[in-house]
């Protein structure tokens, strides 16, 4: 066993993850600072809370429960009894465990009576599905597909890291989208809200920010690896084409995402960027008007960039990624010289 073996690396990574989770959870109290104590939080628009809804239609507003009936999901960890939820969770947990215990007793008794061989529940479920849909044989063929040993060198993992970072971006992006508001009045304030009030909001935003940069670095590194090794040659031309399109889509992600905080840097970078797009011969003005939705960067631009960033570009990326992976799967990993 070499000193820096893959197994030791994995163990180290798991240790770092465990310690990291502990630190993350133990510092989460920072994220729950009350609104009045935090001077950095400056809401621009006053009417983005519940107040507006409350005044317009009082019958639709749900009044929060009193503290004793608050469905505090973490309270049972802290040992606080809060109304209905803590006993309900306890009963559900112990009740299901008890049912499982009873089920085990009954099954053991029946196998002892009939002398039929014991089969775990998971195997029974798998047999039940396989009996009807016959998936075990094709699934085995897919899973046991031979992978050449040269594909274990570290430089073959760059594309996989890019794909994994895309998944990370998707998850953190969805979490951010829950709190982000794509209007010029509320965008800035909602970013401040994420950074100061939302649980782990600043952590999620930091992950989204840095993994975006990391994804571009990994994308370019993967492309350089493929270029240097000549893996783009016949029969893998279409793989290269889809890869270049994925790099362009990643850059579009970066360009559209940069506007969303709606601060000075974002606004003027987008102004200059779309102005440069306007200098393209023949279709320049068209591109500029498409990007800005008009002749200036306004709230419409923000809406358009948000739509591109969270719907259009992700869908296109997933489609091209699927094609990319299927082609690799079909043709195998290119043999190095």
């Amino acid at each position, binding site marked *: 066993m070499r000193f820096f073996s*893959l*197994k030791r*690396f*994995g163990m*180290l*990574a798991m240790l*770092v*993850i465990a310690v*990291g989770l502990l630190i993350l959870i133990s*510092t989460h109290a920072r994220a729950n600072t009350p609104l009045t104590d935090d001077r950095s939080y400056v809401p621009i628009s006053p009417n983005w809370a519940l107040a507006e809804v409350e005044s317009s239609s009082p019958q639709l507003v749900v009044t929060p429960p009193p503290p004793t009936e608050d469905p505090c999901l973490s309270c049972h960890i802290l040992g606080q009894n809060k109304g209905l939820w803590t006993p309900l969770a306890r009963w559900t947990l112990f009740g299901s465990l008890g049912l499982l215990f009873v089920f085990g007793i009954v099954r053991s008794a029946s196998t002892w009576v009939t002398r039929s061989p014991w089969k775990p529940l998971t195997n029974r479920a798998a047999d039940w599905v396989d009996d009807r849909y016959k998936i075990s044989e094709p699934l085995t063929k*897919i899973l*046991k*597909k*031979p*992978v050449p040993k040269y594909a*274990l060198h570290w430089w073959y*993992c760059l594309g*996989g890291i890019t794909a*994994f970072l895309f998944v990370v971006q998707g998850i953190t992006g969805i979490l951010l989208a829950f709190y982000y508001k794509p209007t010029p009045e509320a965008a*800035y304030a909602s*970013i401040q809200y994420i*950074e*100061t009030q939302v649980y*782990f909001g*600043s*952590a999620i*935003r*930091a*992950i989204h920010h*840095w*993994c975006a940069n990391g994804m571009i670095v990994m994308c370019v590194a993967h492309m*350089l690896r493929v*270029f*240097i*090794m*000549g893996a*783009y*040659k016949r029969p893998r*031309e279409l793989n290269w084409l889809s890869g*270049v399109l994925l790099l362009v889509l990643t850059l579009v992600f*970066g360009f559209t995402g*940069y506007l969303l*905080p*709606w*601060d*000075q*840097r974002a606004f*003027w*970078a987008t102004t*200059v960027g779309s102005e*440069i797009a306007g*200098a*393209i*011969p023949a279709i320049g003005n068209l591109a500029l008007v498409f990007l800005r939705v008009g002749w*200036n*960067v306004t709230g419409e631009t923000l809406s358009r960039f948000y739509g591109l960033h969270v719907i259009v570009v992700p869908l296109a990326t997933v489609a091209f990624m699927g094609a990319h992976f299927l082609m690799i799967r*079909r*043709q195998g990993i*290119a043999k190095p*010289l």
Partner: protein
Amino acid sequence: MSDIEHNTEDTIPFFPDHVKTEFYVVLGVLAVVLIIAIAGLIKPIGIGEPADPLNTPLHVKPEWYFLALYQILKKIPAMVLGVQGKVIGVVIPIVLVGLIFVWPFLDSKPDKSRRIYWIRLAFAIFAVIAIIALTIWGEVS
């Protein structure tokens, strides 16, 4: 055509062996992601001044991955042979991406020796150094 056929001693099964190595890599990336998360909790990324369409800042810079292209655009003179410098600065990256796009069709012959491999490696290193130099130049200027 393709090289799907291998000897069994040169290969490992996709599951569980190859998936296991990928899993270790994912664990490593996840560890880095968690460290980023902790750093983000301790020191948030923050946000600049709110956008003000009436107040143009002195220096407008794009993100670092567009800096190299932006630097090329800035350093092209205003008029080159009767064509606006801005137009050339936009056409250069489009042509570059187009060239990268059709590259497998221009260079389609299979490799015969290791020499072409070293040439490509040298070219890639040159390109990376050029891009990094342009980016640093754009960052400090």
